[in-house]
């Protein structure tokens, strides 16, 4: 359902473009003068893979049904040059910011392929794609036994430069087969699906003036503090009565209460700032249905506005933005399937020798529209950061953004040649507008039918840590081809 632009929507868009930011937010930025390292991380996780053909075995063909597979690779750029000049069709909405991107190809989720039941699998791929961790069982109900890169960075930054929220985790609801975000071994992160509650959680207690809290505001703050203190006392008392495993669970709960206490305190000391507008925000009813049907036009952009406003207000330096696997709201036009997830699999039936070869173009149009919409949202985040002054440059200069998924080719559950799109200059450490393909067969085989890489997400995430100025030798488990960073990023 498309809504006609209203004044309120217009204002929200204007805020998203950072028109006339209040002076305080500008000066807030100056505290963050470039120090030659990243200050901020955004992980954009697009469930269900991209429009590619790389199978679990590395070839471009489906060994079980030759010729049945769709013929497209819309993720790859126009040429193999190291300068990113022509984007693939899937990334077309990023054309205006292509100079801010670094596209990595030939990168495997080798932790997923090593542990997945058949070299992939939804659950295992989800829980390894950001963690590079060991998992409980490699199956659909697998849990990661280590933190995801976003939370790892968030916890480091929380120590170095605390903010009220260690990370802000948002999701456009859909139909997912697993959660990629982990705080620690076996501890998932939940993402907020609804803009309204996200706003309440992040901005409700942010003051809009700098005249200091009123006595009533102070009383309310003391009230909230008393409740949290009380809950913490109750948790401590129960913990004394239970065994180790249960004590661990209660300690995690207590950690979260302490985080809420810190938020209360930090919000008190925060400068005033512009809050996003979430008026009439739709509410998720599950499976990608929002009650007002506004997922595409409203929820997606609203989450972007919330994320950007939270950064500008100094509420956090880490954000995750998930988009659920293809959403029922998109269907049934023009390709009709019963579940969003099925559309990815339908790519295995629309090829020349497939069961539905006559529907190839309908399939293509549907999945391109959906993936372009996702890219457009990612582009809005990039542009929003770029439009926000910070120090001598802008927020994008001091940020790292990662766009990825649990699969490359969703229809084949392939964790090989993963989507790995970076943006931002990491405080000057990274040079953008680049394209690096680690598929060593690419140079001799223009079609890139063959595949051979020694680079995995472990290396990319190690580079991200280096981008923040930390000199970790390795991120993740030992299911990698080599340790250390991606040399092109450092």
């Amino acid at each position, binding site marked *: 359902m498309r809504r006609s632009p209203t004044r309120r929507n217009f204002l929200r868009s204007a805020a998203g473009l950072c028109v006339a930011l209040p002076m305080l937010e500008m000066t807030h930025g100056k505290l963050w003068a470039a120090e030659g390292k990243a200050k901020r991380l955004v992980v954009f996780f697009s469930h269900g893979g991209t429009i590619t053909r790389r199978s679990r075995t590395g070839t471009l063909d489906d060994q079980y049904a030759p010729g049945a597979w769709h013929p497209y690779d819309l993720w790859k750029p126009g040429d193999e040059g190291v300068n990113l000049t022509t984007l693939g069709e899937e990334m077309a909405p990023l054309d205006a910011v292509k100079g801010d991107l670094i596209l990595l190809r030939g990168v495997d989720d080798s932790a997923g392929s090593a542990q997945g039941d*058949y070299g992939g699998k939804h659950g295992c791929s989800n829980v390894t794609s950001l963690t590079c961790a060991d998992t409980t069982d490699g199956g659909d109900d697998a849990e990661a036994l280590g933190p995801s890169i976003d939370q790892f960075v968030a916890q480091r930054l929380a120590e170095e430069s605390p903010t009220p929220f260690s990370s802000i985790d948002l999701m456009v609801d859909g139909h997912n087969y697993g959660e990629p975000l982990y*705080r620690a071994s076996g501890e998932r992160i939940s993402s907020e699906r609804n803009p309204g509650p996200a706003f309440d959680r992040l901005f409700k207690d942010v003051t809009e003036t700098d005249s200091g809290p009123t006595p009533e505001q102070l009383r309310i703050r003391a009230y909230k503090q008393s409740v949290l203190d009380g809950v913490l006392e109750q948790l401590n008392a129960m913990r004394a009565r239970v*065994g180790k495993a249960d004590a*661990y669970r209660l300690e995690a709960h207590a950690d979260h209460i302490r985080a809420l206490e810190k938020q209360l305190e930090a919000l008190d000391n925060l400068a005033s700032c512009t809050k996003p507008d979430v008026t009439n925000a739709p509410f998720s009813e599950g499976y990608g249905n929002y009650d007002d049907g506004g997922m595409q036009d409203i929820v997606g952009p609203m989450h972007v506005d919330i994320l950007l406003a939270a950064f500008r207000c100094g509420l956090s330096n880490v954000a995750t933005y998930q988009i659920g696997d293809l959403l029922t709201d998109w269907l049934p036009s023009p390709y009709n399937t*019963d579940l969003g997830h099925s559309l990815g699999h339908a790519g295995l039936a629309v090829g020349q020798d497939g069961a539905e070869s006559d529907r190839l173009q309908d399939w293509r149009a549907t999945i391109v529209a959906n993936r372009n919409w996702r890219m457009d949202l990612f582009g809005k985040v990039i542009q929003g950061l770029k439009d926000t002054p910070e120090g001598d440059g802008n927020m994008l200069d001091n940020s790292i953004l990662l766009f990825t998924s649990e699969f490359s080719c969703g229809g084949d559950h392939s964790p090989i040649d993963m989507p790995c799109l970076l943006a931002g200059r990491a405080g000057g450490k990274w040079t953008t507008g680049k394209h690096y393909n680690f598929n060593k067969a690419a140079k001799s085989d223009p079609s890139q039918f063959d595949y051979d890489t020694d680079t995995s997400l472990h290396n990319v995430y190690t580079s991200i840590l280096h981008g923040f100025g930390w000199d970790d030798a390795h991120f993740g488990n030992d299911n990698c081809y080599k340790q250390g960073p991606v040399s092109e990023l450092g």
Partner: protein
Amino acid sequence: MAASFLVAATLAGTGCIGNIGGNDEGSLLGPGGPGGPGGPGGPVDVATSGLRRMTPAQYQNTLRDLLGDPALVLDLDADEGEVITQLAVDKLRGAAAAVVGRRQSWTVQPFPCDTSGADDAQCVEDFIRTFGRRAFRHTLADDEVLRLRTVFTKARATQSFDGSLLVVLETMLQSPDLYYFLELGRDPSGTGIASGVRPLTGWERATRLSYFLWNTLPDDELLDAAEAGELDTADGMRAQAERLATHDRGRDTFKGFFSDWLELDGTKKHPSLITANKDAGLYPADSPELREAMRIETEALVERVVFDGDGRFETLLTSNEAYVNGLLAELYGVDGPSGDAFEWVKLPSDERAGLLTRAAFLTVFAGVEVKSPIRRGAHVLHEVLCIELGPPPPPNASDVPVKGGSVDEDGNVVNRTIREDVVAKTSNGVCNNCHSIINPVGFTFEHYDALGQWIDTEEGEGADGAYSLPIDASGALPGAGADSAAVDGAVEMSAALGRSAEAQSCLSKRFFESALRRVPIDADLASVDGATEVTQSGGTLTDLVVALATSNAFLHARLPEDDQ
């Protein structure tokens, strides 16, 4: 049990990873078997369990009932992982604050005094003890009261008397004592209990019973029974279990159980009854109102059989009574009401029999355009017969379109029914391992389209023009040799399932999972089997839940090893 063995062996032989009723080969001789731990004649044994979190529904019900606020709706985190998330904790805080903010809607006043008046220490004490007993599901010990009184005292430094009481209330509403199910048990008296196993206390039993049968906190009568020691005896537990199971609040439990059984709220693998997409051109009768009516019909049949009828599982699978409004009457092609009002009618007995032949189930387990014999068959095998099928082989074959229609066979255009298309696409070596079991069950549903409407023929537009193909709904329930039951149509299959020992055993297992929110292991099987014996000897579904609620697995706990 012998039949289960044969089926398990059969499936293992096909290469379709199978396991029936949680019963691994050899388990009759091992734990859970006669003389072994947990088995008949052996010491009482149960699986290890730890701290459990309330489900979002349980938490909302609990807060709703604590303050008597029936319209309360809370925004809670859906994650049910073992370790609570930051967002979930934040939402618990928000929920407790929301409840306090709805003070005007409370019909239960927690504070036994005029809170706008002067400080009243006795009021604070009475509130903590009285409200605490309900919220924490036990009579509070003095140190627990002291801890909450301290919360009050500290809050009083910055808040009014009333505000300080609210601080204590808001603390209690998100306290771990309310939110978690902590079961430490008591020292066993006497013998016959495996080492490390402890009988639950009366309070813990009251809590298990209430959340199993009512999905909310125990009422005062149940708490009083716990305090009086009545739940320490089998007779006492039975009396309370019978009271709760037959109470009006138990209606929602049974309705909810069978809605879950039919997966009407959706799962990872398919959408819910409300969100399942249908092609509007092919199904003009479809509407959100029709979907809502389907759900009402399903729940009404459960309620009628369990509370007003003979209470038997078999009847749930064979009754042709239906609670329909105008939309549903039209869908079923029967005379009945024409408007929004619902009435009980009889459906044609050769077309419909019980829950599996009703529109709700048939709509969820179907595609956008066509019915899905594979998904219908797989659901019956998994959920009704507890046959665990292995995952589809790579590439994930579940999304290959199976829609019938014209195909080229050796140069000739042939029109295939969906059944024929399924056979053609699933008969090769590796697919056939599982589909030889799934398809014969799913094919019995061939007379129902993707919206559950009865069809006598399959119509379509083929390469040579319109076609009309006869439907073949013959199939079979799995079993080895003579145990494999040929059935024709879903009416016959439902009747066979209603009589089936495997289906009744599986139902006990599903109720066990609902009661204890975990999968039974070998040590629990005696408890599951005991419940099955009740239904097999003519007992009702109420008898089944009472048997489970008085089983050893329900009455005992085994603490994690480091706790012992």
